[in-house]
């Protein structure tokens, strides 16, 4: 790469020095951006309420917290923890499968190259609606409707799974090779046959990968929606927090992380086998 003439400084006597050209060519925009960003950062930083006294108190709490984290207690609350983890796992399985089952038709409907325009718009609207709110907010509303317990949690996870998978499936379908569809069509295939023999085989590997990834996410989310009463290990976790039982908190977190590790390993193994 030859240096741009503007970025060299050919002063007589001194050796020529190459300087990297700036990212933003226009000096005025560049400086406006730098100054704007700095001012915004100063504003944001000044709005952070740092209570120094509280921080010092926090340090001793942090010490007990980390001490507790290093000595996880799996035994005192074991029956609660076990029940919570199992509930989270069952919720994850049911919600992921139901979510996958519902996201396939929605994904097909939201693909511009497969669906008619009204169907496309309706499915896109549903998918956008399911992704608009954070899982916790969904869970709050669904707990208010369905009552406390894992059912509300399962519905929450199903809705967020649909939003995630449906959108990605639709985008995958829009990027498929159309030749295969035409080939099957020329053999006289119906719409459904075209989907089954020409579309699905093309998106299947990535779809399986995404589903396994979502299984993972759903387990992690199930730990959070319990905080607002939607079942799972999150309920046990908040109880432990509220009672300042940090040894139990640490044990629960270790179990969550271990489960995610194992899930990631299994998912990797399945993916290698399928692809």
């Amino acid at each position, binding site marked *: 790469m030859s240096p741009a003439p503007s970025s060299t400084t050919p002063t007589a006597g001194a050796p020529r020095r190459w300087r990297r050209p700036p990212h933003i060519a226009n000096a005025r925009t560049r400086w406006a951006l730098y100054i704007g960003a700095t001012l*915004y*950062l100063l*504003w*944001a*930083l000044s*709005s*952070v*309420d*740092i*209570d120094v006294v*509280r*921080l010092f*108190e*926090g340090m001793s*709490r*942090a010490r007990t*917290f980390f001490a507790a984290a290093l000595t996880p207690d799996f035994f005192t609350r074991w029956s609660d923890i076990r029940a919570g983890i199992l*509930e989270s*796992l*069952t*919720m994850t*399985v*049911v919600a992921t*499968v139901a979510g996958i089952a519902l996201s396939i038709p929605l994904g097909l409907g939201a693909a511009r190259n497969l669906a008619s325009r009204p169907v496309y718009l309706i499915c896109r609207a549903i998918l956008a609606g399911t992704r*608009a*709110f*954070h899982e*916790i*907010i969904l869970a*709050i*509303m669904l707990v*208010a*409707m*369905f*009552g406390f*317990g*894992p*059912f509300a949690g*399962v519905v929450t996870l199903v809705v967020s799974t649909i939003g995630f998978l449906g959108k990605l499936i639709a985008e995958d379908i829009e990027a498929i090779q159309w030749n295969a569809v035409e080939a099957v069509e020329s053999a006289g295939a119906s719409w459904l046959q075209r989907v089954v023999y020409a579309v699905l085989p093309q998106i299947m590997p990535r779809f399986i990968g995404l589903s396994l990834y979502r299984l993972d996410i759903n387990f*992690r*989310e199930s*730990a*959070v929606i319990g*905080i*607002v009463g939607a*079942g799972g290990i999150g309920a046990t*976790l*908040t109880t432990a*927090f509220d009672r300042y039982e*940090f040894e139990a*908190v640490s044990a629960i*977190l270790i179990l*969550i*992380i271990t489960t*995610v*590790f194992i899930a*990631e390993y299994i998912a990797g193994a399945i993916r290698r086998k399928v692809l």
Partner: protein
Amino acid sequence: MPVEQQGDTRIWRRRDRKAALRHFGVTLAVAALVVFCATIISDQTTWEFVGSAPLQGADLAMRMWPPRLSYLTELWGPVIDTIHIATLGTILGVMIASPLAFLAANNTTPSRALVRPVALALLVTSRSVNSIIWALMLVVIFGPGMLSGIIAIALRSVGFCGKLLYEAIEEIDAHTVEAVASTGASRLQVLTFGVIPQIAPAFAGISVYRWDINIREATVLGLVGAGGIGMALQGAIDTLAWSRVSVIFLVILGTVVLSEWVSAKARAAVI
């Protein structure tokens, strides 16, 4: 593709007999697991509540309608706090994630046997724990407020940004790095002139993408006391002020849509 001979006709099958049997077995096992899990959930569900859900939902909607828009004036502060939490949290997260990504990437790590696994473990740990759970812990340490929220967002972002970033680093063109190294550049110079220019667009894209996600996450951190509009939401829910809850939902929706638009624009500009 297996073809079966039946009398005179040859029939095409998708799988041969052994594969079909194995496929059937796996399907059956998964189905059994799902049914088993579904019965457990169903046993713990009070079905009368589920049956009355449409009624409850309608009742809730009635209470939420009309949204009391006069509350809007009280919400600007919390909304701005939420955006600040997301931005500062993202910056802090990216600052921690970048060195970790260099330690985790196969081609830049100082030691594949020692450093890389540690960096990867840190990234997975960060990703496994949701930002709300990080916030729960940090509120205990730092007390309620924005600081806990910012650090929670940062700790959560580290895993996400670090993972995407180290994958981007592993995909760089090695020739450029070699070219820079062959001029006698030091390790640091190879990094700044060979590696960083190649990952800079990905770096910017990932940061903006995470910022967008973090806006969404920051809206609920207040539920556990970590600042932002979630605090207002918690207060409104606790006092059953549903007409206020709906205003907060509208504001959250607006913020999320806006941030998505901003991040789409910014990503289009850098990539």
